[in-house]
């Protein structure tokens, strides 16, 4: 088929959805160490669907793998109470899911899908072979359907004047399953014949298909119908290429003896009954429990996220334009009550619109959390550790963008917990802990923030080790004895702290906790860690619920315009020059309300020309984030704005030696571009 882009999107999207629900089914089943009937049916159905769609897209390797899985579950379905090697089944299906997802990711990136599924398929075949050997005989015998009724006599009496015909049919090439097509012809023939027989006799299996393909399907029949009507009737068969109906002599040698003698129909009836019984069985399986969920689903539509981004941008611009209009309304001295009330109404409508747009973008963290389940499962197998992952609050909703930025940090933290946090079973038991380690992943809302915590009951962080490593790398800025535990633990987030010497299958790119902090910082969040030696570690990630529209203070340094999120701003003042001094290392410090803070000149940090240099001519802003407080020196404060955060173009990294200190940008109503300060990375 000719693959158009939109079909590809649908294919990828739907297959991913199916894989996701497959994975959830497996997790549910793995807790019970097996799948129940309903779950087996679901897995079968999912594989069947993926097989069909992949075959339509001509992704043969995907279709074949899905087919192998479908076969395996077809076998299990026939005897769902049988005992199977469930751990092996789970492993294989999980591997297959990874394979499918990997290939889909390539497809999304417009790369060639060069994965090879043959190993997986071979493994599945082996498993199936073992199942066939092991599973009780009844399943195998039940599969053999009595068939091969070659000559049948219908119930009506024949008048004796019926003529004999030889019918030869060919099906279209590529029509497939020709044996079953022939079976369909047999059903039609039965209705008009006194007796009939066909070649090949046995319509089961590939041999029959092959013969029909090569030599056609031959039917000899005795019928009272005239040949034209027989032909017309048979020609309604789908995918029929040709059909000839020739009258022949009933005593012709060619006519199978079966018709001439006329056999009884007992065989046929028996076959029919078996089929009927199976069909009833099938129906019983398929119908159980109409779930409300599938009814509810019809109230949802899926929308391309780009459209939502555009919608959000437009709303953001409306917000900005609105504040421009209202703030700039220059009416001289006259009071404009009607304008004020209209402006007020516009303002509340726009707020409402903004809330709705935000809520459209909110999705539950469950999908992301389930991904972690998979990670913990695979890693604990790999490391031979027994770890349970508890998930709390997976229904908590966050902005779609947040999910994207949260994924890598979560993966990284959980990897660390499994790899370094949780001890092996022997160590645990000798320390009086349960052999099973536990990681708790929790999401909850607090007002304007979402808090995600990752807690493990492992060995905890070692203050001494961290200090040792930090001092080796020259990252200590204070004497060790003066540092609180929290400050020590905070060192792991510094760039350069993490080593890349433990690149495993799971830690992958060798990223460190500094990358975790940076990723979280991009969406305006923060991450902290706390630990009790011997008891475990808790990572706390705090992210604003809505990250894309922020309230910010606008200021400039030279020709550069900046926005700093208002939540981080404590105060902005004209400094008293005598409060500013230089410490022995040459860093500028400022005394504010009795406290001393370091003073960062943004013109130096960002390398800005034509900025105010005289401290008396500029301004100082006191900034506080979760981790630290400091002051910045800038030129001129410009007021408070509500802005839509836009990503910086990726290409900008080719244009700048460092973009540290800015996390995005915003376009104001006057068209000006403002850079958004990342308070955690200004130093």
């Amino acid at each position: 088929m000719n693959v158009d882009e939109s079909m590809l999107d649908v294919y990828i999207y739907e297959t991913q959805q199916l894989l996701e629900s497959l994975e959830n089914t497996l997790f549910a089943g793995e807790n019970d160490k097996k799948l129940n009937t309903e779950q087996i049916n679901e897995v079968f159905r999912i594989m069947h669907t993926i097989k069909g769609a992949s075959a339509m897209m001509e992704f043969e390797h995907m279709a074949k793998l899905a087919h192998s899985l479908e076969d395996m579950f077809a076998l299990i379905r026939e005897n769902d109470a049988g005992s199977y090697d469930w751990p092996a089944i789970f492993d294989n299906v999980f591997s297959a899911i990874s394979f499918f997802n990997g290939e889909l990711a390539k497809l999304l990136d417009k790369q060639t899908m060069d994965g090879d599924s043959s190993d997986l398929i071979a493994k599945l075949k082996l498993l199936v072979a073992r199942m066939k050997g092991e599973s009780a005989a009844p399943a195998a015998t039940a599969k053999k359907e009595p068939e091969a009724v070659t000559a049948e006599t219908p119930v009506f009496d024949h008048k004796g004047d019926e003529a004999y015909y030889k019918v030869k049919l060919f099906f279209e090439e590529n029509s497939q399953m020709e044996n079953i097509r022939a079976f369909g012809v047999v059903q039609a023939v039965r209705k008009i014949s006194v007796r009939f027989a066909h070649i090949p006799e046995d319509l089961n299996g590939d041999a029959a298909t092959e013969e029909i393909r090569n030599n056609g399907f031959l039917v000899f029949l005795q019928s009272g119908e005239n040949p034209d009507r027989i032909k017309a009737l048979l020609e309604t068969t789908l995918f029929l290429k040709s059909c000839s109906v020739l009258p022949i002599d009933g005593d012709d040698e060619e006519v199978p003896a079966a018709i001439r003698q006329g056999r009884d129909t007992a065989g046929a009836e028996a076959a029919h009954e078996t089929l009927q019984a199976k069909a009833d069985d099938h129906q019983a399986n398929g119908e159980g429990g109409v779930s409300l969920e599938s009814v509810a689903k019809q109230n949802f539509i899926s929308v391309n996220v780009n459209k939502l981004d555009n919608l959000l941008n437009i709303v953001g611009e409306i917000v900005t334009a609105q504040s421009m209009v209202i703030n700039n309304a220059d009416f001289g001295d006259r009071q404009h009550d009607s304008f004020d009330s209209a402006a007020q109404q516009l303002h509340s409508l726009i707020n409402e619109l903004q809330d709705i747009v935000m809520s459209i973008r909110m999705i539950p963290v469950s999908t992301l959390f389930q991904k972690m389940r998979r990670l913990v499962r695979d890693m604990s197998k790999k490391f031979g550790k027994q770890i349970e992952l508890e998930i709390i609050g997976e229904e908590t909703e966050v902005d779609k963008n947040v999910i994207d930025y949260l994924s890598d940090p979560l993966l990284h933290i959980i990897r660390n917990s499994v790899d370094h946090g949780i001890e092996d079973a022997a160590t645990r038991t000798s320390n009086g802990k349960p052999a099973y380690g536990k990681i708790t992943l929790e999401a909850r809302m607090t007002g304007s923030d979402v808090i995600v915590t990752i807690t493990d009951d492992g060995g905890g962080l070692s203050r001494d080790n961290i200090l040792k490593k930090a001092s080796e790398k020259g990252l200590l800025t204070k004497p060790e004895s003066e540092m609180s535990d929290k400050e020590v633990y905070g060192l792991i987030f510094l760039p350069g702290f993490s080593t890349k010497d433990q690149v495993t299958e799971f830690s992958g790119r060798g990223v460190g906790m500094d990358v975790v902090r940076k990723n979280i910082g991009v969406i305006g969040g923060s991450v902290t860690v706390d630990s009790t030696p011997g008891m475990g570690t808790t990572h706390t990630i705090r992210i604003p619920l809505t990250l894309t529209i922020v309230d910010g203070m606008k200021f400039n340094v030279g020709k550069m315009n900046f926005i700093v999120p208002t939540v981080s701003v404590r105060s902005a003042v004209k400094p008293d020059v005598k409060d500013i001094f230089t410490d022995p290392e040459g860093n500028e410090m400022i005394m504010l309300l009795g406290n001393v803070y370091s003073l960062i000149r943004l013109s130096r940090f960002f390398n800005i020309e034509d900025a105010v240099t005289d401290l008396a001519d500029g301004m100082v802003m006191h900034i506080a984030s979760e981790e630290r407080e400091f002051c910045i020196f800038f030129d001129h404060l410009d007021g408070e704005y509500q802005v839509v955060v836009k990503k910086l173009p990726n290409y900008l990294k080719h244009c700048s030696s460092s973009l540290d200190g800015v996390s995005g940008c915003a376009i104001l109503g006057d068209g000006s571009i403002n850079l958004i300060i990342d308070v955690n990375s200004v130093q």
Partner: protein
Amino acid sequence: MAKIMIVDDAAFMRITIKNMLKKSVHEVVGEAENGKLAVERYRALSPDIVTMDITMPEMDGLQALREIISINPGANVIMVSAMGQEAMVREAIMSGAKGFIVKPFKEEGILSAIDKLA
């Protein structure tokens, strides 16, 4: 021109078939993602031809076929099957399906089947 209803639990397949039929004279009047809805919509829309997937949740294609045939014994139902479903297709034929098409199929395939029944 025939009125067609497409029954398949996979949106991908529904859209694929619909795209294939777009170029024909036929009109897709309805879709259903499971057997139950298929039967309901068959009653409501009385399409001339139904393409029916076999493996679906809620109610599978075979059962939906039987119910549709019981509503209209002359109903034109084409089963959409895949390799490996021989037994099911046999049952479908016994139950009154007018024929079947095997995934993966091409545009010509499904059009020729529908044209024949239209």
